[in-house]
C-alpha cells in the first residue's frame, strides 16, 4: 500500500481518496497553490445531494486565499443515512467520529498536532456542522452554517436533535465552548420554500419557524442571546439578498464565498478574544444583508 503522503494531490489540484482506516467516508482533498497556514484545514460538508466534488470546486479558491488544505468528506446515504444528526441511531456509524478519525490521521500526516478546522456546511451540511461543533468544539477554529433546514437549538430542556438534551450515544454537548467559537450563519433572502427537502412538522414550525430563513434567524437569535450573556462575540447572521436555496448560486451570485473568506480571515485575528457586547446593545438581535 503506498504511503498516504504519496497519494495526496499536488499543489492546486484535488483528488478523491479513500483512507483504509476510514473506508466508509471518502474525502475530496485539495492542496492550495501555496501552503501558508498549516494549522488549519477547511472542511466543507455537502448537503442532501451529497455532492462533495461541488464543495471542493467552490471552496478551492478560498483554500488558495487562506493558504490551507481543503477537504470535503463524502457521507453516503448507505453508510451515513442521517449524517446531519451525526448518527441515525445507537449502533449506527457516527459521521462525527469518522471526521475525527480523519482529523487525527491528518494531524499526523502533516505533523501539526494543534491543527483545527474551519468547518463549513451547506443545507444538510450545515445541520451536520453545527451539531458536530456542539459535540466537538475543541476541533473547530471557526464555524460557517449556510441554509440549514433546521437546527438543534441550545435548549437543555428539549431533546436532541431539536434541542440538546439526551443526545444518547453521542459525546456530551459542550455548549459553552460552542458559544465561544466564531460563527457565521448565512441564508438566502428568498429561501422560503417549504419543499420536499425541508423537514416540516407542526412542532418544528412552532419551535424554529416555517422555512430556512426564519429558522436561521431564530437559531441565531437563540445563540446570540446566550453569547451576549457571557460577553462572547455573537454569531454573525448574514442574509444573501435575492438568493434562494442553491449552493452554487449562493456562493457565486450571492457572494457567499467572499463573505466566508472575509469572516474566516477576520476570525483568526479575533479568535479567543473576549469582547464585551452588553445585552440590549444596538447590534444585538439584528443581522446584516448582503447584496448579490
Amino acid at each position, binding site marked *: 500500500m503506498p504511503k498516504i503522503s504519496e497519494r495526496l494531490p499536488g499543489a492546486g489540484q484535488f483528488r478523491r481518496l479513500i483512507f483504509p*482506516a476510514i473506508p466508509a467516508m471518502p474525502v475530496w482533498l485539495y492542496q492550495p497553490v501555496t501552503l501558508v497556514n498549516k494549522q488549519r484545514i477547511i472542511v466543507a460538508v455537502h448537503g442532501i445531494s451529497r455532492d462533495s466534488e461541488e464543495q471542493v470546486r467552490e471552496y478551492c479558491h478560498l483554500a488558495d486565499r487562506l493558504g490551507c488544505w481543503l477537504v470535503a468528506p463524502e457521507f453516503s446515504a448507505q453508510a451515513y443515512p442521517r449524517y446531519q444528526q451525526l448518527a441515525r441511531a*445507537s449502533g*449506527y*456509524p457516527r459521521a462525527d*467520529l469518522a471526521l475525527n*478519525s480523519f482529523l487525527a490521521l491528518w*494531524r499526523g500526516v502533516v505533523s501539526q498536532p494543534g491543527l483545527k478546522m474551519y468547518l463549513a456546511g451547506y443545507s444538510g451540511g450545515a445541520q451536520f456542522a453545527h451539531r458536530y461543533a456542539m459535540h466537538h468544539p*475543541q476541533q473547530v477554529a471557526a464555524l460557517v452554517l449556510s441554509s440549514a433546514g433546521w437546527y438543534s437549538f441550545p435548549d437543555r430542556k428539549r431533546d436532541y436533535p431539536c434541542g440538546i438534551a439526551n443526545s444518547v450515544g453521542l459525546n456530551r454537548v459542550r455548549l459553552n465552548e460552542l458559544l465561544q467559537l466564531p460563527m457565521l450563519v448565512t441564508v438566502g433572502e428568498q429561501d422560503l420554500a417549504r419543499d420536499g427537502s425541508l423537514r416540516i412538522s407542526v412542532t418544528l414550525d412552532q419551535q424554529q419557524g416555517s422555512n430556512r430563513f426564519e429558522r436561521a434567524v431564530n437559531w441565531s437569535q437563540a445563540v446570540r442571546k446566550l453569547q451576549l450573556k457571557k460577553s462572547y462575540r455573537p454569531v454573525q447572521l448574514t442574509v444573501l439578498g435575492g438568493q434562494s436555496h442553491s449552493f452554487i448560486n449562493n456562493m457565486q451570485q450571492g457572494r457567499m464565498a467572499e463573505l466566508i473568506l472575509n469572516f474566516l480571515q477576520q476570525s483568526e485575528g479575533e479568535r479567543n478574544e473576549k469582547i464585551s457586547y452588553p445585552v440590549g446593545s444596538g447590534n444585538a438581535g439584528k443581522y446584516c444583508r448582503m447584496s448579490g
Partner: protein
Amino acid sequence: MNSRIGKAKRSYITRNVDLSTAAQLNQQVPVKGDLMLARVDRIRQHTRLENTQGRREHLYPGDEIIVAASDRYATGQFYARVPEQLGACHLVAAGGIAAEVIQRNRGIKAATEITTLGVLCDSQGAVINLSRFAPLNDVNVDLISQKKVPTLLVMGSDMDSGKTTLACAAVNGLRQLGYRISATKLTGTGAGPDYWRMHDSGADRVVDFLDAGFPSTVGLEAHQLVSLLQQFKADAVDSGSDILIVEVADGILQPDNKALLGSDAFVNEISAALIAADGAIAATMTTQTVLQAGISVLGIGGVISKAPLSCNEMQESLGLPLLGLSDFHKDECRDYILGSLFGAEYYAAAHTG
C-alpha cells in the same frame, strides 16, 4: 530421570507439554523453545515461578525448575536472548523463560540467576521443544474462509499501558450481551497473568502464541505473525466464537509491531482497533500510527482513563471516544462497538428481531 523431572518446579510455559516423554538430559546448545532443566542460584528480580495452574511458587536457591530457552523484549524489564550455551544464565520471566540478559530496565533488580543443566530429550534423544506441543497447529486454517470473524485489535503505546485490562473489559462487556468471545494474545513473552485474566473476564476461548508452540514472539517476521493470527481466527471459528479480540504486546515502536503495522496482510485481517495508552501524547501518537496503517480506531482507553486531565488533552487532539472500564457495560458503548464490528444494518436487525 522421571523422578527428577517430577520434583522440579514446572513453569507456566510448559502448560501444553507432556513431560512424561522426558527421558534424558542432553548437553547440546539450546535453541528457542527447547525445554531445559535448570538450577536456581541466586534470587533477584523474579522471586517466584508461575506454574501451569497460574500459582506463583516461591523459589529457593538450589531449586530445580523446568524452563524454556527464548528471547525476551520488555521495556519495563529485560531485553534478553536465547543462551548461547548451557550453564549460567537468567530467569527473565516468571512464566519460565531462560535467557541471557543484554539490557535491563534500571527500575528493576537484576535478573534471577540460574544454571541450565541440560536440554530435555525424549527416550529417542529428540529434544523436547515447545513447537512439538502446539494445539493450534491442528486447527484447519481453511475454516476462516467459511466464516468471517470480526476481529478487534487491542494495541498499546507501550508495555503496561493497560492493554490487557482494556481487552478484558471489552470481553466482559460483550460477553454479558451473549456474544461468544475468543480472547487472544498474538505477541509477547509466555506468561500466565494475561492468559488467566482473559479467562477470568469470561472469554469463551483463550489462546496465545504458546498454543502455537512459541515461547515468545520476539523476532518473528510479520508474515509469521499473520499466519499465527489466521490460526487464532480458525480456532475462533472452530470454537463457535462470534468475535475475536487480539491483544498485541508492547508498543507501536517495538520493532516487530512496527513491521506488523506495515503489513497489508495483517491490516486486512483486522476489523477495528482499541488503543490503550498511558498518557495523551502516547494516545495521540499510537492512534495516528494505527490510523495511518489503515486500521479504524474505535476508541482509547487503558491507563490514561484514570487521569481526567490527560483525557481532556487526548480529546482535544483526537476527538475519539474515551473508553473507561465501566463503559463496556453501557448499551451505547456496546452498540457502538458491535455496530462497528458487524455493520450497522446487520446489528440493528439482530437487535430488533
